[in-house]
């Protein structure tokens, strides 16, 4: 029942205002200086190492991580605020995005001290970047069916198999890869016997092959691993516990503001494009998008507050992602209906980028069909 889904607190603490003003001032200065032009879907496609390093140098990365490793020991809600400002300002943040959102926290939670000391400070500085190595050619939604393996050898493991759709693997330094360390036949269930490893994408035996998007962009890759040696200390967490580790990350991965703000810069540009006295139709369409966006933001903040309080709102996160990814895909549809092409160059560019990236919104990070299954289970009908 709807009441089983719980979105209790929704107001951010006022202590987050200081960092909001700071990141906003930083971004406005960068835009004014021409460092970047605000664009859509930049958390996935805007890979800019200089910009990420600048964010690191200004203390905006690794916000919640221990100071001992170069972090800032601030609250997760401060991080939420920084992230939503970065997205709303269309900043190029793809280089460090996965690193800051999940690889860093994953290593801090499950990694050993050597691994933390080796990697976290550079991650917090915005200098090294991570990708996600989960999907395989025959394993998408049914992730537990993966076939890549790691076999124990002296001092480490040998990894074999093919990962696919690996975002930015050609630009990034590492990925956290999910593989089988025990065959299904022996693991006592499909969800057992998997483990996570931190793998240097430049190791010998790794081949990163581009896969072009329909737009022609080189965004993701196929990563083929042939007898890649990974030393023992690069295993993340406990052998055989990979599935639980991956699932534990999902509420964090799925509930962020990137799940409804990918096309926000287009919405803001649309308001300017229709002018201060829009037609009734234009006003109504924009008004409805913003009304829904405001409601969604409340839900998103609420999930962030729940996570910060130590709860794991997996279903709520799935629900927000389903709603949010559909809404962010509607924005370009409305925008192109209301403003004819050929009038405003930047607007046309934002529409084009949004239209061509929209198919990914409802796939990446778990498809909306899978998300609705999660919600339905919580409602009590599965």
């Amino acid at each position, binding site marked *: *029942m*709807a*009441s089983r*889904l719980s*979105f*209790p*607190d*929704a*107001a*951010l*603490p*006022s*202590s987050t*205002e200081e960092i*909001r003003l700071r990141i906003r001032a930083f971004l406005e200065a960068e835009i004014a200086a021409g460092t970047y032009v605000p664009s859509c879907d930049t958390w996935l496609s805007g890979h800019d190492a200089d910009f990420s390093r600048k964010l690191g140098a200004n203390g905006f990365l690794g916000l919640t991580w221990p100071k001992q490793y170069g972090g800032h020991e601030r609250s997760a809600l401060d991080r939420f605020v920084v992230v*939503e400002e970065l997205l709303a300002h269309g900043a190029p943040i793809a280089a460090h995005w996965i690193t800051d959102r999940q690889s860093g926290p994953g290593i801090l939670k499950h990694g050993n001290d050597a691994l933390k000391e080796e990697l976290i400070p550079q991650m917090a500085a915005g200098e090294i970047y991570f990708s996600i190595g989960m999907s395989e050619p025959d394993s998408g939604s049914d992730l537990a069916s993966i076939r890549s393996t790691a076999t124990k050898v002296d001092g480490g493991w040998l990894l074999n198999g093919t990962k696919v759709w690996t975002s930015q693997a050609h630009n990034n330094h590492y990925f956290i890869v999910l593989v089988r360390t025990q065959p299904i036949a022996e693991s006592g269930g499909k969800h057992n016997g998997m483990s996570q490893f931190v793998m240097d994408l430049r190791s010998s035996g790794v081949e990163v092959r581009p896969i072009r998007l329909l737009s022609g962009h080189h965004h993701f890759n196929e990563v083929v691993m042939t007898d890649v040696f990974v030393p023992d200390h690069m295993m993340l967490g406990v052998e055989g516990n990979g599935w639980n580790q991956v699932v534990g990350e999902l509420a964090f991965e799925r509930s962020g503001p990137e799940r409804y703000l990918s096309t*926000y810069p287009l*919405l*803001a*540009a*649309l*308001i*300017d494009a*229709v*002018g*201060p*006295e*829009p037609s*009734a139709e*234009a*006003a*109504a*369409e*924009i*008004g*409805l998008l*913003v*009304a*829904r*966006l*405001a*409601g*969604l*933001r*409340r*839900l998103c903040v*609420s999930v962030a507050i729940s996570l910060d309080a130590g709860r794991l709102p997996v279903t709520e996160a799935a*629900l927000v992602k*389903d*709603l949010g990814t559909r809404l962010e895909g509607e924005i370009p549809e409305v925008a192109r209906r209301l403003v004819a092409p050929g009038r405003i160059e930047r607007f046309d560019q934002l529409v084009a980028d949004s239209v061509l990236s929209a198919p990914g919104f409802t796939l990446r990070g778990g498809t909306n*069909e899978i*998300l*609705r*299954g999660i*919600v*339905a289970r919580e*409602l*009590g*009908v*599965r």
Partner: protein
Amino acid sequence: MTAVDALLLETVESIFGDLCTPEAVGAAEGGLDARLWSALTESGLSTVGVAESVGGSGGTLHDAAAIAKAAGRFAAPVPLTETSVVGGWVCEQAGLQLPDGPVAVVLGGGRTYWAPVAASFVVVTDRGVGVVPAGALTVGATGANYAGEPWAEVTVGAADLVAGPSVAEAAARGALARALLMAGALQQAVELSVLYANEREQFGKPIGKFQILQHYLAEMAGEAVVAEAACDNAVDVIAAGADSAEVSQVIAAAKATTGRAVGIINRLAHQLHGAIGYTDEHRLQYTTRRLWAWRDEHGSEAQWAAELGRSLAAAGGPALWPTLVSWPRPLAV
């Protein structure tokens, strides 16, 4: 979020739960349920959120909103929100005593919801506001909405008026009241659908085992939750203090979002219930007919969305983000 008293909510649930049976709700059509109204009055629930100084029960807007949502969920056949959220608010703003008994709010004249059963009218004009006994105004044609909630055409004659909210401000308050009722009723439509999906069997299993219906339910739950969130934003922002332009914006967002959700949730709820849900025998219709009616009353989603869109366009694209992040306001902790 401002916490709502748990005891208050319990009382509300138990009164509505006891008295808003499908039979009672059906029997009240065309008028109001007098038994329910007196139970609400005796417990002081009909004027929660209205200051004691003007004859209300006191309490916050958050309390009043929680009661309004519950009234929507239980399809309560009484002018509860007309009396508290709209009429009581107008009285409080103007320093007028809120009279006893059910209230209808006359917004400049014309179609006035609940007028045929109101004991008093709160009259709002752009010349001022006033309170009069029902008999004092000319009541013309009468009718009822899809759910049998009555209305009448009312003409405002000469009345004693004092300074108070404008017609537009009171109409916005009416829209807030409908949005809150809808938030509750939308939730009920989802809950009834979940129950039915587990109960009804076809092809040897509960229909809730069919993935397409699971997805309908997930979509309905999502729309209900986002609509309620828009209402909660409005209540939070109004309670925290906002100028009338911003009050209008947050109410517009609430009415637009709830109104939109009705189209989706009613359609899917009826689809999922099959023929039985289309009959007057099944209680789903008490909820869905109200939702269809309420989305049109005090401004449709299209009107409010356009209102919001116009004010956003006038402010310009760069102003949108700071506005969004101020709903709700950050809280000092």
